[in-house]
C-alpha cells in the first residue's frame, strides 16, 4: 500500500505552481524551496515567535539571553535532541552552521551576509551552550534570526553530514543515506515536483524527553495549481490546509464543505499577515517629490472602498504604517492619539485644493495639466501578486476620478524589484515597511537615511528605495538609530516613536493602505486543533517554519 488511510494523513497545499527543484534540500542555497514541508516538519527552529502573546516560545532552544550591553548572546539548547539518524544535535552543530556562514566570503549563502554583519565569533561553551560575540549591540538578534519572526530563520545543519561537502553544490538528498536529515518528528518519504510525502518518525527525540508524538502519521504537501483547482480539492475534502485564498473561493468551499474554517468564523475571516500594504512613492521624481502632492494622493485614497472592493471586506484599513498586532498596539494607539491616524475615507476636495495650489488646472479631458504636461502617476506592481494588483486597480480608479492620469503596470517580479531598488518608478504597490511584529524599530529603520542611495544604484536590501532624503528624514534617522541601541520595548520608546512618526507623517514618503490579509482555510473533517482566533496558540501561516507547532497541536476528528 502506497497510500495511508486518509484519516491518518494531513494534506497541505503548496501554491505557486510546481516545485522546480524537488531533489535539493540544501536550504543554505538561496534558490531552494523550503516551504515544501521540509522546514515545517523536518528542520526544526530554535525558537518560535508567538504572534499572539508577543513572546518567544522555545523549540530546540531553551533560552537565548544577552548581556546588558546587548553584544554577547548565549544560546542554551534543550537536552536530548537527536537527529533522526540517532546522532546528537548539540552545540557543535550550531557552531558548525554559524561558522560556515561566517566563512562564506561570497556572502551568497542564505543568512551568510547577516551573520557576518552581526557575529564577530561563535563559540561552544559546553555541549548545550553556544556563545555569540556580536560586532555591535543588537537587541533583536534572537528575534530576527532564530525565532521564525517571519517565514523562517537560520536552520541548524548536521555537522556529521555536511562536513566535507561543498555548501554551494551539496544537495542534501540521498534516499539510501536517509538524507535530508532533520531533528523533526517526520522524515521525508518521497519527493517530486508536485508532492512531498513525510512519514512520522516514532523515534523522535521529544519522546525521550516526555513530549507526546504528533498525531498525524503522514504529512503531504501537494502542488494544487490554480485557485479554482485548490478550492475544488478543498471543497471535496482532499486538502486539510489551504494557503491563502480569496473570499469567494472560501465561501464556495464552505458552501460545499461544512467543515471548512478560517481564523475568524465570520468576516473578515482572515488572519493579518505581518506585511501591511502601502503605496510607495519615489520621493525624488517630479512632481511627487513635493510632500504636499503626496498628501494630495493620500487625500484621494479611500481605504474603506479598497477594503470593500479589492478585499471584499476581508481586511481592515491601515491606521498607521504598523501591522495591527497586539505587541504594536501601544505604539499605534499613541500615534493615533497624537492625531496621526490615517483617514478611512477620501477627502478629494482637500486634494483638489492642494493640487490646484501647486499650479495645476484641469484640462478638457478631465486631467490636471501644467505647462502642457498632464499630471500622471504610474503604479508598478509585481505581476504575480493579484492582491496588490487588485488594490492598485481600485486606487487607479480613485486617482482617475480625481483628475490624475493614473496607470497600473504589472510587471515581472525581477524587473519590478530592479525598477524600485534603482529608483526607476513613480509609484509602487508593495509592503516594504514590513518588519516590526512585537516592537516598532524594524519597520521604521527601513526608511532611515543611512540606506540612501542615488537614483540608478541599488538600494540595499530594498531599504529606503523611496529615497526619502530631506532634513526631516535625517532627524528621523537620528531618533530611530537611538531606538535601535535600546532593549526591546524599553521605557520611553513610545514617545520616541511618536516623535519619529511625526517627521515621517508630515512628508509621507509612502502611503499605508491596508492591512494584508491571509485567508487560510482549514478542513476539520479529519483533523481539529487548527489555530483560530479562539484557539490562538499561534498564527496560522502553514508555509512558515512555525508550522511545527500546528502539527503538534492537531487531533484526529472523532
Amino acid at each position, binding site marked *: 500500500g502506497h497510500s495511508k488511510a486518509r484519516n491518518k494523513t494531513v494534506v497541505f497545499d503548496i501554491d505557486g505552481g*510546481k516545485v522546480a527543484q524537488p531533489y535539493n534540500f540544501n536550504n543554505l542555497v538561496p*534558490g531552494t524551496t523550503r516551504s515544501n514541508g521540509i522546514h515545517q516538519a523536518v528542520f526544526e527552529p530554535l525558537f518560535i515567535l508567538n504572534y499572539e502573546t508577543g513572546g518567544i516560545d522555545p523549540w530546540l532552544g531553551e533560552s537565548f539571553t544577552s548581556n546588558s550591553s546587548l553584544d554577547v548572546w548565549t544560546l542554551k539548547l534543550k537536552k536530548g535532541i537527536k537527529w533522526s539518524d540517532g546522532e546528537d544535535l548539540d552545540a557543535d552543530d550550531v557552531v558548525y552552521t554559524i561558522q560556515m556562514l561566517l566563512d562564506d566570503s561570497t556572502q*551568497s549563502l542564505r543568512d551568510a551576509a547577516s551573520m557576518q554583519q552581526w557575529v564577530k565569533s561563535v563559540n561552544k561553551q559546553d555541549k548545550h551552550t553556544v556563545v555569540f560575540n556580536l560586532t555591535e549591540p543588537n537587541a533583536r538578534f534572537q528575534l530576527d534570526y532564530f525565532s521564525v519572526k*517571519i517565514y523562517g530563520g537560520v536552520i541548524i545543519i548536521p555537522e556529521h553530514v555536511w562536513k566535507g561537502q561543498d555548501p554551494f553544490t551539496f544537495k542534501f538528498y540521498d534516499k539510501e543515506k536517509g538524507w535530508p536529515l532533520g531533528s523533526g518528528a517526520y522524515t521525508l518519504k518521497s519527493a517530486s*515536483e508536485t508532492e512531498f510525502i513525510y512519514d512520522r518518525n516514532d523515534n523522535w527525540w521529544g519522546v525521550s524527553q516526555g513530549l507526546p508524538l504528533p498525531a498525524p502519521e503522514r504529512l503531504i504537501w501537494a502542488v*494544487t495549481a490554480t485557485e479554482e483547482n485548490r478550492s*475544488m480539492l478543498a471543497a471535496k475534502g482532499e486538502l486539510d490546509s489551504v494557503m491563502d485564498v480569496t473570499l469567494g473561493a472560501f465561501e464556495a468551499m464552505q458552501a460545499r464543505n461544512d467543515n471548512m474554517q478560517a481564523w475568524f468564523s465570520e468576516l473578515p475571516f482572515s488572519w493579518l499577515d505581518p506585511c501591511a500594504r502601502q503605496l510607495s512613492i519615489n520621493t525624488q521624481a517630479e512632481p511627487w517629490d513635493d510632500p504636499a502632492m503626496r498628501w494630495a494622493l493620500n487625500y484621494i485614497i479611500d481605504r474603506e472602498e479598497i477594503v470593500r472592493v479589492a478585499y471584499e471586506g476581508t481586511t481592515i484599513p491601515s491606521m498607521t504604517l504598523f501591522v495591527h498586532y497586539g505587541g504594536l498596539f501601544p505604539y499605534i494607539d499613541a500615534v493615533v492619539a497624537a492625531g496621526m491616524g490615517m483617514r478611512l475615507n477620501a477627502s478629494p476636495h482637500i486634494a483638489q485644493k492642494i493640487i490646484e495650489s501647486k499650479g495645476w488646472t484641469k484640462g478638457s479631458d478631465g486631467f490636471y495639466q501644467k505647462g502642457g504636461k498632464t499630471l500622471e502617476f504610474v503604479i508598478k506592481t509585481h505581476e504575480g501578486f493579484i492582491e496588490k494588483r487588485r488594490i492598485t486597480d481600485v486606487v487607479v480608479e480613485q486617482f482617475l476620478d480625481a483628475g490624475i492620469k493614473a496607470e497600473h503596470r504589472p510587471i515581472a517580479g*525581477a*524587473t519590478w524589484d530592479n525598477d524600485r531598488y534603482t529608483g526607476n518608478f513613480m509609484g509602487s504597490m508593495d509592503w516594504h515597511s514590513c518588519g516590526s511584529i512585537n516592537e516598532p524599530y524594524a519597520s521604521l529603520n527601513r526608511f532611515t537615511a543611512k540606506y540612501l542611495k542615488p537614483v540608478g544604484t541599488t538600494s540595499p536590501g530594498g531599504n529606503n528605495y523611496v529615497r526619502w532624503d530631506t532634513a526631516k528624514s535625517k532627524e528621523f534617522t537620528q531618533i530611530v538609530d537611538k531606538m535601535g541601541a535600546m532593549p526591546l520595548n524599553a521605557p520611553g520608546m513610545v514617545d520616541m516613536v511618536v516623535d519619529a512618526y511625526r517627521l515621517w507623517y508630515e512628508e509621507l514618503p509612502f502611503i499605508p493602505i491596508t492591512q494584508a490579509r491571509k485567508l487560510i482555510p482549514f478542513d476539520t473533517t479529519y483533523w481539529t486543533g487548527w489555530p483560530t482566533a479562539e484557539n490562538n496558540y499561534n498564527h496560522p501561516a502553514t508555509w512558515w517554519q512555525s508550522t511545527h507547532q500546528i502539527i503538534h497541536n492537531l487531533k484526529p476528528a472523532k
Partner: protein
Amino acid sequence: MGGLTLQYALRRFGIFLMTVWLASSVIFIIPRLAPGDPIQSMISRMSESAGYVENSEKIVEGFKERFGLNDPMYVQYGRYIGGLVSLDLGVSLAMFPTPVKEIVGRALPWSIGLMSISLVLYFFIGNLFGALLSWKKTPFFAKIAISASMIFTSIPGILCALILIYLFAFNFDIFPFTGSYERGLEPAWTIEFFSSVIYYGTLPALSVVLVTFGFWTIGMRGMMVTVEGEDYMTFGQAKGLKPFYLLYRYQVRNAILPQITALAFTIGTIVAGQILVEAAFAYRGMGSVIVNAIKDVDYTVIQGTSFILILITATSVLILDLIYPLIDPRITFQKN
C-alpha cells in the same frame, strides 16, 4: 526515393543548424532587453515570504560573479552558444545549482508523452471531422454535431481544463484533479504505474485535444473541397469506385498532405499552448518549468526550455523535409 543524396541531406542539415542557431540567438537576446536580473528576482522571492532580506546586495553580487553575469555580453553569448553545441544548457540561476539539463530532462518526457498522445488524437479526430464535414454522404446530424463541437476551439486551454476538472473531477468524481500519477506511487515500469499515468493524463490530454482539433478540422475541410474539384476525383467516380474507398484513398490521402506540413510547422506552437494546460493540472511537464522560469527571470532555464522547443520544431520540419517524398511521391529532393 527521389534520389536522397548525401549532398541534399547535408545542405538540409545546414539549414537546420542555421535556423536553430538564429532562433537560439533571439532567445538569448530577448530576456536581456529588460532591466532586472535573475538574482534580484531570487531575492525578491525570498522577501515575498520572509518580509525582507538583509544584505541582499551582497548576495546579488556574489551570484552575479559566480554566474558570469558581469561578463561582457559577447562573452556570455559565446558561452551560451558553446554550451548549446555540447548540449550543455548551463545551470539554473534561480534554482542553483541544478543543471538546466536535469530540470528539463525531468519534465521533457512528461510533456512529450502528453504531446504525442494528444497529437495523435487531435490530428486524427481533426482530420476525420474535417473529411466528414465535406463528404456528401455524411449524415446531416453528424455534420451539425461536428460543427458544434468546434466551439471548443475558441475556448482558452486553461479554461477548458478547469471546466473539465469541474465536471469530471469535482462533480462526477471520474478523474483526478491534478498530478501525473497516483500520490505515493514510485515511478517504475509496472502496469500499476502506467495505468495510473494514463488515468491521470486523460483530462490534460482531453483538454489539449478539445481546444486543438478544430483547427485541423477547418484546414481539412478546406483541403477536401479543393481536392474534390480535382479531375482525378471525377475519374475515380467514373471508375465506379466505392464511395468510401474514394473518400479515403483518393480524397483524404491527397488532402492530408498540406495538413502534415502544417503539423510540422506548428508543433512548437502547439507545445507552447500545451504549457497552459499543463500548468492548470500541475502536470509534471515543461509547462510549469517555463512558467516558473519566466516568473523568476531564470535566463538559463528560459533559454534551455525554449531551445528544446526550437529543436522540436526545427527537427520536425527537418524530418518532414526528409520523409516528404515518401508521403508525396511528386516531391523529389532536388526541387524545393
